[in-house]
């Protein structure tokens, strides 16, 4: 039904426009600040990796990346582990208040981070978790656990109920059925859910910077500091920015067939 080549051209043009800003950032990261300031060029003049080396050798940056990766990873594991049984229950059974609970999770998923920034700050300060990765891990559970429940519920729905019953008839106890039969069937669902939890925690900036100050400073905070302190070291900023894109770009290829289902909270 496509009328010829026009849609293809438009689509490719859009992809180019979409990639242009990212290309621009990469170009920036390969130039020294003086080259940047000396004028606009389409291709980086005498490209160098010096900024990347600077970051890799700077303990604050390395520590910041380490902190970010660790709280994101821990949060992802907790979110998926906690969400799995809940997603199974939501999809397989009716129980008192199931509709309301499922809705309540959606409201947390959609809650504006700004509303929770101040209360979280006070809460974690009070219980002594402030400026530790656990503050960010628990804070990100606010939206990542609901996200994991919703996406996994979509994937659990993909497995016919008769398989659970056949396993029961075969004599499986629930735990052995869940681990030996059920989990392998939603393996790609778990993978996609983990990817989206990782991503939503990795891209979040407001809570991550509010709940940390020195010891557990994530890279986002170090980047915001870079604006004010060294007077706009553009290429350093660009290099740090490019590094943050790597995790997403790497993993997306493996879950590309389920991206839509993930973004649509498992509803597609």
């Amino acid at each position, binding site marked *: 039904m496509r009328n010829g080549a026009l849609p293809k051209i438009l689509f490719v043009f859009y992809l180019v426009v979409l990639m242009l800003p990212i290309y621009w950032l990469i170009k920036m990261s390969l130039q020294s600040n003086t080259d940047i300031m000396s004028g606009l060029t389409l291709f980086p003049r005498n490209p160098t990796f010096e900024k990347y080396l600077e970051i890799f050798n700077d303990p604050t940056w390395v520590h910041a990346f380490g902190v970010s990766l660790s709280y994101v990873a821990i949060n992802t594991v907790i979110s998926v582990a906690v969400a799995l049984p809940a997603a199974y229950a939501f999809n397989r059974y009716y129980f008192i208040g199931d509709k309301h609970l499922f809705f309540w999770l959606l409201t947390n998923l959609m809650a504006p981070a700004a509303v929770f920034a101040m209360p979280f700050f006070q809460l974690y300060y009070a219980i002594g978790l402030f400026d530790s990765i656990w503050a960010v891990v628990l804070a990100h559970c606010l939206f990542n656990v609901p996200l994991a429940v919703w996406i996994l519920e979509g994937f659990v729905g993909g497995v*016919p109920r*008769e*398989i659970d*019953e*056949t*396993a*029961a*008839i*075969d*004599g*499986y*106890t629930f735990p*052995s059925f869940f681990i030996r*039969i059920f989990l*392998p*069937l939603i393996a790609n669902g778990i993978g996609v859910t983990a990817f989206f939890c990782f991503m939503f925690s990795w891209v979040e900036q407001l809570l991550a910077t509010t709940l940390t100050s020195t010891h557990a400073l994530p890279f986002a905070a170090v980047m915001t500091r870079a604006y004010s302190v060294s007077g706009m070291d553009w290429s350093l900023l660009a290099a740090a920015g490019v590094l943050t894109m790597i995790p997403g770009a790497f993993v997306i290829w493996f879950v590309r067939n389920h991206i839509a289902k993930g973004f649509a909270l498992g509803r597609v």
Partner: protein
Amino acid sequence: MTFVLDHIGFDVGGVRVIDDVCLTFQPASLNVLLGPTLAGKTTIMRLMAGLDQPATGSLLHDGQDVTGTPVRKRSVAMVYQQFINYPSLTVYANIASPLRVAGVAKSEIDTRVREAARVLRLDNLLQRMPGQLSGGQQQRTAIARALVKRAGLVLLDEPLANLDYKLREELREELPRIFSHTGAILIYATTEPSEALLLAGSTVTLSQGRVTQFGPTSKVYRDPANIDAARVFSDPPLNELPIAKQNERIMVQQDRSLGRPNAFSHLPDGTYRLAFRADAASIGPAATGELNFSGTVLVTEISGSESFIHVDVGIGTWVCLVSGVHDWAPGQTATVNIDPTRVFIFDSSGQRVQANVVQGAEA
């Protein structure tokens, strides 16, 4: 190993879907649950397997009350209509799964799985994944899993409904033989009367969640206790004719009298329903015999070995069977001659009222 359903009742959304079902199945028996879609076949099977809990009544397995026992602990196997297998396991692992769970020795698992695979002609497919198999092969894998478990109760929920016409014919032959020597109680649900007749054994006719009759298949077919049982057991649909008996004469729609056929002589006056199956009526240009009605041909259905002629006789549309291929042109006038010896008579409440079993119909 008998299995008893004792006054079983079950509700869905507050509506009584299964209504006071009492059935006793003998060991090593083949029992067909016959009824239209939504008659309650699947629900009864799920209750017997323990997948759902009955609202009222209890289930006895060898006299032991198993109503509350979880599915895991019951000696039951089930085959679904849409051939359910574990997609992530090979055919071998699928068949072996009940034995593995039961902790049977590895060597014994191997022999029993290969034996079941041989019986169901899956020998060279054991390492394949269910996704790579055809519909027929997937269903045979599910049947093999049910067979290998040697459960006391085997439930087959319209297992052949999704298969090709000819494949269905072959599996229908094999199934009774496959399970005959296991001594299990076999419950086979279907909407097709011809399947019930082919499988023989005994038949439970169901409508709207109620058991209308339970007995040896050919007896239920030939000697329906009520009109519901007769309707369920007729494909094409049962031909029916409301009649009234007034002072020794049989009247059809006030104006036409059928004289005094001796088949009705013993009946007291009142309104009745006369019913007959397609094969109890012959069709021809002229009337032969007492019960004949002329009408126009609507359509002819040819099923290869037989042809069904649909005739509009004014008071209803009836179907007559002719063996071989005969294409009556629609619109043609024809006379339906009913064999009075193979007619069922039901009173206004639907109960069968013939004193003696109608001769001729009894083999």
